[in-house]
């Protein structure tokens, strides 16, 4: 199994400049946090999903749906219980609290989905060169893209290790909360040891291939802002401005009557 999220689909979204996509990513975060009303957030979600659909990367949702659902449920339940509002719904739960819980769930899920779409359409190297072109030093940009690479590698190692330990009889499913956490020790130690070992080789390989040998370097990937990038950015900035105006000036999309 390929542990990385990136899908080499070659759509126009993939071909956008990484800087454009970074802007879109941050913009969608802003959108998610401008609104609180779930109805408006559903609109934002629809935009994000449409974008993912156009990029042909929504299949990756299958890999993260569990996290999305878990976050949604936990958030909806916690806020319903601990938040308070004006309109009683049942028992001690108020309507505004439930709505707020759903809103927060949508916010978090939108940011995760947007992140997923970004990583599914942008290579680590593109992230790096995008950051470099934005004026960030290559070493830092490389560290970011290496961190992005490390996560799927660790997940893959973790899967193998979990198979090895389950073969020895490790049962992660039973026991109370504390017990279960303790049971993860046989997974965590080997993951840590293996990762440290391979990181050591990795850094030697980097040195040997001249990483940081000179302050300047050239790039195999060539990125440039094209007409398409400009178009996408203009459309998106208009959308963003419209939404902010709607919220701040018009006062729509908020949530009345919710208190903590």
């Amino acid at each position, binding site marked *: 199994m390929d*542990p990385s999220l990136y899908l080499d689909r070659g759509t126009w979204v993939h071909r956008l400049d990484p800087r454009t996509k970074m802007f879109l990513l941050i913009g969608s975060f802003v959108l998610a946090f401008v609104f609180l009303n779930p109805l408006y957030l559903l609109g934002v979600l629809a935009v994000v999903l449409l974008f993912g659909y156009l990029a042909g990367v929504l299949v990756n949702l299958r890999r993260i749906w569990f996290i999305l659902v878990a976050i949604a449920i936990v958030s909806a339940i916690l806020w319903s219980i601990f938040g308070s509002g004006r309109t009683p719904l049942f028992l001690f739960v108020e309507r505004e609290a439930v709505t707020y819980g759903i809103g927060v769930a949508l916010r978090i899920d939108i940011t995760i989905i947007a992140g997923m779409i970004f990583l599914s359409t942008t290579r680590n190297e593109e992230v790096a060169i995008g950051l470099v072109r934005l004026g960030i030093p290559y070493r830092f940009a490389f560290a970011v893209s290496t961190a992005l690479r490390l996560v799927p590698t660790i997940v893959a190692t973790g899967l193998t290790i979990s198979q090895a330990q389950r073969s020895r009889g490790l049962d992660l499913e039973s026991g109370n909360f504390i017990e279960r956490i303790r049971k993860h020790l046989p997974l965590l130690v080997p993951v840590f040891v293996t990762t440290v070992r391979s990181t050591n080789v990795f850094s030697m390989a980097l040195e040997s*291939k*001249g990483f940081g040998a000179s302050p300047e370097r050239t790039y195999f990937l060539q990125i440039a802002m094209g007409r398409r990038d400009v178009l996408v950015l203009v459309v998106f900035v208009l959308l963003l401005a419209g939404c902010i105006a709607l919220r701040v000036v018009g006062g729509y999309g908020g949530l009345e009557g919710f208190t903590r």
Partner: protein
Amino acid sequence: MAEPEVSIRNLTYRYRGRKDPALDGINLEVAEGEFVVIMGHSGAGKSTLCTSLNGLVPHFLRGRMEGEVRVGGRSTREGRVGEFGQEVGLVFQDFEAQLFSTNVALEVAFGPENFQVEHEEMVKRVENVLRQVRLEGFEDRTPATLSGGQKQRLAIASVLAIQPRILCLDEPTTDLDPMGKLGVFEIAEELKNRDDVTLIVVEHETEETLDADRIVVLRDGKIVANRPAREVLQDVKLLEESSVMPLQVARFFHERGTEDEQLPLTPEEGVEEFERRGWRVSPERHRELVEADEEREQSYGETLIEVEGLSHHYPNGVVALEGVDLSVREGEFLAVLGQNGSGKTTLVKHFNGLLKPTEGSVRVDGEETVKQGIRRLGQRVGYVFQNPDHQIFSDTVADEVAFGPKIREMDEGEIGERVEEALTAVSMEGRGDEDPFGLTKGERQRVAVASILAVRPEVLILDEPTTGLDYAEQRSMMELIRRLNEAGSTIIVVTHTMWVVAEYAHRAVVMRDGKVALQGSVREVFAEEDELRDASLRPPHIVSFGNALGYPVLSVEEMLRVTEGG
């Protein structure tokens, strides 16, 4: 004569915190265009020697260096690793860890990028280098989706793209199937024929070193031989003493008293020499061997594992197994062979319930594995994974071994008894208090085996138990497994190491594209050289030698037993 490409004088290197030096007074010169192979036991200093070539020793690794290493006339002390990177390309043993890009082309371009190669030139280099390692057309593939052999070739390509004058490969074939190995050696062969590239290869498979100009043998950080390849390969005694596997044909003639200088090395040379000397194979004694095989087959017990019409499809749609029928009887020693991706590991992961059949059934002791569950099956079928570091987590060896019994809630006395028993079985008795992370790879492998044995499974599955071990360690690991088999355990080994199969296994199953291509006694299977080649496998030299004489034998000892004359 011009100054040698590499010149090492009195190099001694001691890693910080270690008492014994990793390298001890090394003197070595390598001329431009030479092909030098470095051999030696685990911990002999081979990898350290490699890292001293581009300045990782002393600049990157922590320790104390004495003496001098000069590359292209310049001391490695004088420049940084990055500077020497342009002269010395280093490919590390762990190829997984050195690939990090999201596609093949970018992986290859990384080096040239760092050395500020112009874009146009870079594109050209990527294209050339990929053609050289036969990965053209793979530019857009993610390295993670490549096979082991392809990954290793990519790692080599990523270094070649820097156009170093010296290429140093540290055990480039350790983790590869025979086909993958061949691919790497073809590249080495081409590089060897170029006068402008100096090739230094650390290798433990003696059969692959025949083409070298020179072989350097290290032992405990010292050079014990530095002579033309042929001469070293004929020195059977020296190789054995250095924990390096001697060539089997050479050893056969050596044991029969042939002078070192006359030792044939390859099966072809062997057959010629055998006939020239008028030696013969005794048909009677050979029949005794075959009869012993048959007798052993009679002695197996009940059927333990029964596989019927097994197919397995991975979630991404890949068909890993298709219509596999197989049975394993009590007391057998079965080897599962095949190239990477042929379905070997997928097959055996069904035996302990790690994977469930998409179609067909797998029964252990007459009951479907699906019904038994992995935990209960673990009592009957133990599975030792390839990399011991994927399972070791305890502070002491004893705790690690006690994990299985403890999790099955046995009482203290019972646990202690089993730990002792398991440690004795792997010849590590009395070492229960040691820290497993301080052990050598071979010892960690033993701890992993012991931790499975402590549950007393009837069947023991071992995935590549000899990978990454030197010859002496491989021998002792396999002797251990043989003892377990003789004591009643049923053994299933998944492996690429052909001589291990020939000498230790009873029966072999050859997998190819998810199907069983060949199965039978090891002797029968290894007699079918053509079919094996179709499955990208190659029997060990002594087997080929016997086959060429018309008598399939499995080891040097067997060959000695059936040979008459002279």
